[in-house]
């Protein structure tokens, strides 16, 4: 499989076409906007947190397939997690996308680990990271985030 086909693997294309947890929900407790102004990616992350648990996670916005798929998979992964675990997942995802990488990524990040193939396309790493930085911002009470 070519690097390009690994980047746009079926999983990514499917999440892009039919994203999970997509759209602004009626209610939420935490929100942040991830915006990469230069490339035009925008991801709003909406969280409903009760007793330190993420009861629901949604996202909305207009962005590339990598960013859409990453956000879709992220919301699936963090739903039901504690805020502490979500922050830990953020750190793990960041590490996976960094040069040092994350050993045992699949064990920690589950299906999200498939996005490691984005690393072959350095200019697109920021697209995959954007929703995670927005998540981190929302959890820390910040309104905006960027990965540019």
């Amino acid at each position, binding site marked *: 499989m070519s690097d390009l086909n690994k980047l*746009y693997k079926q999983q990514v294309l499917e999440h*892009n076409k039919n994203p999970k947890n997509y759209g602004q929900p009626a209610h939420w407790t935490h929100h942040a906007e991830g915006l990469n102004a230069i490339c*035009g990616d925008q991801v709003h992350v909406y969280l409903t947190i009760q007793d330190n648990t993420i009861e629901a996670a949604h996202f909305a916005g*207009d962005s*590339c397939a990598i960013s*859409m798929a990453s956000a879709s998979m992220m919301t699936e992964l963090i739903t039901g997690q504690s805020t502490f675990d979500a922050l830990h997942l953020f750190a793990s995802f960041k590490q996976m996308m960094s040069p040092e990488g994350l050993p045992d990524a699949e064990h920690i990040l589950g299906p999200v680990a498939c996005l490691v193939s984005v690393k072959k396309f350095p200019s697109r790493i920021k697209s995959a990271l954007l929703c995670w930085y927005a998540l981190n911002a929302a959890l820390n009470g910040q309104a905006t985030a960027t990965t540019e």
Partner: protein
Amino acid sequence: MLREAFPCLHQQVNGKPLVYFDNAATAMRPQVVIDAVTDYYCHHNANIHRGVHCLSGRATDLYEQARASLARLINAPSPDNLIFVRGCTEGVNLVAQTFVRERLQPGDEILISHLEHHSNIVPWQIVCQQTGAKLKVIPMNDQGELVLDNFDTLMTERTKFMSVVHVSNALGTINPVKELVQKAHAKNIPVMIDGAQATPHLKVDVQDIGCDFYTVSGHKMYGPTGSGVLYGKAEHLDAMPPYHGGGEMISKVTFEESIYNKVPAKFEAGTPNIAGGIGLGAAAEFIMDVGINTITEREDVLKKYTEQALQGIDGLRILGQAQHKSPVFSFLIDGIHPHDIGTIIDHHGVAIRTGHHCTMPIFQFFDVPGSCRASLAFYNTEQEVDILVESLNQAKAMFA
């Protein structure tokens, strides 16, 4: 063949022959430009305008010959009408701060157009913040053309300056700059034209256009990055205060006062980008040797071919279809984000730009975050356009 003159075009990218369609971001340089820069560093390396030694004299001559070449390219009355700058951005900022700022009172107006690059918006916003003046905008239509029906009413007695782009970097629209200048001058409004995307593609005659200022970007016209010139009418340049203080721009300095040098040295403080200026002069000579009309005619053929080819792709929409435009195509494909298209076709060796192209207001007009932009130059070929189309079809197939 002229294409052979551009060494960087001849390479493989991701295992495929490079198709370079990002000329509006920066053009390729012909060997003569690269040689001029190398020649300066290898044989004439010295500072200019200040040494009695042989090399300094040669370097000064080369630099001033370059200024003269650029004056011929845009038909300036004299080389002294040209100030070397880092590019159009610096040219606009220079005019904003040294010509326009002191003319503004709170409530005065500066007129720009909806087609401007950020570099012809932000410097005016800064000067507006400094003075309390307001920015007004000539609107555009769905074709990406300026709407001039109410142009006369846009210019009021408070309008103190107008700055308009000659050729849009995002859509390719060629604006009727001569007509705009005539109308503005009828109301005593001085005009600056941002020519970044014009000199690589069109005959530019600043005296015919009649503008007060005109900016030229070096790297868009096959010259070195960080080079450019600002043309200004002599009476303006003589009256304007310096932009930067330092060496070279003075004729005498004491601790009490400094007496400024004459134009253009007054605006050229510090050691300039000497190699860049010399390379830019070589680029101007290259354009004149090839013939700007030859370039425009070849690009017209390529433009029509590309337009037809892109229109043959289902679900592809071209943004901006002005009657007069240069070979720049901003487009969207249903269901595929521009960045994904950019990544996929890069895999096929095709280099385009994706995003907002430093013209966010244009994309706010079209209500999209950005576009794909294929911007061609005379050294591109029909076969390369075919490769673009094929790679776009591959992207569509992948996302089907």
